Structures are given as structure tokens and as C-alpha cells.
């Protein structure tokens, strides 16, 4: 596949992630922060997000598995997950955290567990999508092309 085709494929793939609500404009902000002095910024930050999110999801799972659930602790983990998902543009994960927090406030264990499953699904979904996006970018660079940037919507 020639570089131009790969670039068009990347643009269409990225657009689809926004259209499906998997990513929001904050992801474009991350791309704006990438430059020659920081050429791998997006991949590095997203990788950090993956590490943090998986740890937080494990922590939340363990906390909800306790005989007596400490919802203050659960809330703190959700707070951090919402902050980081909002900051990288992982919209559906962010929205899952908003729903989850309502169950925390009600101290509703069953509701929290169902919501947690939903967040985990959304997290692995966005992880797969972003890893595919980064692979497309790598293929373009390996073929001697440059990665096209999406435009900001505001």
C-alpha cells in the first residue's frame, strides 16, 4: 500500500473513532502538544494512561470485592480514572466513570459492579482502537511518510 493510501486510511480510521464517541477533542489537544522536541508524546502519554487505568481498574475491582466496601476508596480511584480518561480524550471511559460515581454515592455495590464491567469493556475497546491507530502511524513512518494531523474542531 502506498503512503498516500495509508495516510487516507489513517485519517478515516481516526475520524471513525471520533464519530463513534470513542475519542473526543481532548485527544486532538494531545496531538497538538507533540512536536520535534517531543515526537512520541502521544504514544507515551497514552501508554501511561493504559498503565494507570489498568491499575485503577484492578484497585476498584479489589475494593468492591471486600466484605465491607470502602466507597471513599472506590470514589478516589474513580476520580483519578475519570481525570486521566478525560485528559487523554477517552470519552466513553470518562462517561462510564460519571455513571459509576452515581452508584458510589448511593453505596450501591451491585450497580457499581455492573458499571465497572461496562467501564472495563470501554477501556479495552479504546485500548485496542488506539493501539491499531498507533500501528497505522508506524506503518506510514516506516514507509517514509509523515503522519497527518486531524484539525481541531473548535
Amino acid at each position, binding site marked *: 500500500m502506498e503512503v498516500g493510501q495509508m495516510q487516507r486510511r489513517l485519517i478515516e480510521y481516526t475520524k471513525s473513532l471520533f464519530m463513534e464517541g470513542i475519542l473526543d477533542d*481532548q485527544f486532538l*489537544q*494531545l496531538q*497538538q*502538544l507533540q512536536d520535534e522536541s*517531543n515526537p512520541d*508524546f502521544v504514544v*507515551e*502519554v497514552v501508554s*501511561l*494512561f493504559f498503565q*494507570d487505568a489498568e491499575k485503577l481498574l484492578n484497585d476498584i475491582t479489589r475494593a468492591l470485592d471486600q466484605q465491607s466496601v470502602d466507597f471513599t476508596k472506590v470514589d*478516589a480511584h474513580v*476520580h*483519578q480514572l*475519570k*481525570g*486521566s480518561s*478525560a*485528559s*487523554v480524550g477517552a470519552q466513553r471511559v470518562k462517561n462510564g*466513570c*460519571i455513571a459509576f*460515581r452515581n452508584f458510589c454515592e448511593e453505596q450501591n455495590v451491585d450497580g457499581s459492579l455492573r458499571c465497572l464491567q461496562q467501564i472495563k469493556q470501554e477501556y479495552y475497546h479504546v485500548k485496542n482502537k488506539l493501539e491499531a491507530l498507533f500501528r497505522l502511524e508506524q506503518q506510514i513512518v516506516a514507509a517514509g511518510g509523515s503522519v497527518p494531523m486531524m484539525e*481541531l474542531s473548535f
Partner: protein
Amino acid sequence: MGMSGGSAEGNDKSEGQSFSCKNKLTALVVDNGGVCRVIQTALLRSYGVETEAVETGEAEVELIASGATFNLIIIEMLLPVLNGPETARQIRTMGAQSMILGITAFFDERDQQEFLAAGADEFIEKPLSPEVVIPIIRELHN
């Protein structure tokens, strides 16, 4: 701290805004989340703000106690042990004149009141964005 004369140079990432680097602004990011810490730091640096970051309120208080000064301090609400408002209260008591921006994952009016009463100048929900940063930088330069 005003804008210097002559051509401005900066590290503009959007909207063609550029700021003088003659008197560089300084900022401190206080957030226990690594992702937020990295992104907020990168955003501020992209506007030419010399930015440091720490993970805890205690580390921030130690820095201020050691004599460090910053034009802007961004503090996460839900820091472990010494939370955001308590951190702000302690550094205000120490005489810190910085602009303090409280930041949180979930905006709540009670948290806002608590943070402002503790000495913060503003309180916003994450993510930190150019729409928030640019007016703050303008204000600090003026």
C-alpha cells in the same frame, strides 16, 4: 510582570497566540495522577511557562517552604493525605502569592466553595485546556 517590547517569541500551539519569554512565567502542577501531571505540564510548557510537577500536597508545601515561588500553582482537589484545599490553605498561610487554580475530575459546588475559601483563585473541571490557560497567562503577564 509585563510584556516586553520588541518582537514576542513564544511556544504557541494554537490560535496564533505568542507571549514574551523575557520574563518567563513559572508554574507548579500538583497531581497524584501521572497522566494528568504530564499533560498539564506539557500544556503549560507549550505556552512558554517554566513548569515543575509534584505528586503530593506535602511535596508542594515543602517546595514553598524552601523558598520556591511560582506565578501559577495548579492543585488537584483529591490529593491523598493533604488534600487540595488544605494544601492551598497551608501555602497561603506561608505567604504564597501565586495564582492558585484548583482542578478536579468531578466538579462539585461544595468542593469549589471549600477550595476558594482555602485561598484558590479559580476552580475548574479537568481536562486543563488552552481556553483556560491562555486567559490565565494573559492575566499573569499583565
